């Protein structure tokens, strides 16, 4: 039994040495007797996708905020997309509420265009530039019935999509 325990570690060491030697043997060794006096080397490098997207932590109705993307590096033919994908309200409606239950409906615009759930608010393609930003305006209703602290959330989602980009 003792000899078996001695043999197993020794075998493991021998196998590990064999694996190391085998890895080095992938290089090409050329001698005077080599029929082919050439050797090929594979040159590679991997560039990982990267980007930094910044969304505002808070926004007060009646104001605008900036959504930005920087240092965008994705595969050619792809772009970084920032989308407004949801709200805290039922059916993803653009509403804010007080604790007492009063509601206000608001709108979000990207420039002159209304933003709907699922719309892309910012798209950055490194083919054009490695950074970009969008200004979103959150509009309050013209009239308010009840006083109170109205609150709600919107959700932005970032993804890497393939061209063509949205218009």
């Amino acid at each position: 039994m003792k000899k078996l325990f001695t043999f197993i570690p020794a075998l493991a060491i021998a196998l590990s040495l064999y694996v190391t030697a085998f890895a080095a043997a992938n290089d090409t060794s050329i001698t005077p007797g080599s029929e082919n006096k050439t050797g090929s080397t594979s040159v590679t490098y991997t560039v990982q996708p990267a980007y930094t997207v910044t969304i505002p932590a808070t926004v007060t109705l009646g104001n605008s905020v900036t959504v930005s993307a920087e240092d965008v590096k994705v595969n050619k033919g792809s772009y970084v997309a920032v989308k407004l994908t949801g709200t805290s309200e039922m059916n993803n409606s653009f509403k804010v509420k007080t604790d007492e239950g009063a509601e206000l409906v608001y709108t979000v615009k990207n420039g002159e265009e209304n933003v709907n759930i699922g719309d892309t608010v910012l798209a950055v393609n490194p083919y054009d530039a490695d950074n970009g930003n969008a200004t979103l305006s959150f509009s309050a209703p013209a009239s308010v019935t009840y006083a109170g602290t109205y609150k709600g959330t919107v959700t932005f989602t970032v993804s890497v999509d393939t061209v063509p980009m949205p218009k």
Partner: protein
Amino acid sequence: MKKIITFVLSMTAALSLSLTAFAAAESDPANTFGPSDTTGKETTVNFNVDPTYTVTIPAKVTLAKDASDGNYRQDAVIKAENVRLLENKMVKVTLAGDFKLTTGENGTSYELPYTVKVGDSDTAIITGGTVATFGTSTTDQTSTLHFAADNPTYAGEYTDTVTFTISVE
């Protein structure tokens, strides 16, 4: 006693035959002397030493990002061992390639040029250029190649293949 004498005589005969055979293998009209030979004769001394060398080419060079400037670099070493050549001869290693790394395919393919420099040289190698020369030496010899590429616009897996050729000149 009689048997001993018989054995000795037999051994003597056997030995003389072997000596004769040995002498016959060595004898040659060109280098045997007779009473008439008054001058020396030549024996040619030969010793053949075949050229040897082992040059090792790396299978792969993987560039890594340099944090200082965002570019990608890596060194590769060409190694020569047991180099023994005719006098004044050298083992020469040349490099061939287009020195362009490629990522993607078809409509999304993208090429990024890279450079290869040797040792302390600031000049990039062109295809067919010499990247190492090794002379006769009992010690191992190396040549260090510096691979470098700019920080690319796009992410992805970039690849290329270069070919080294060995010759003795």
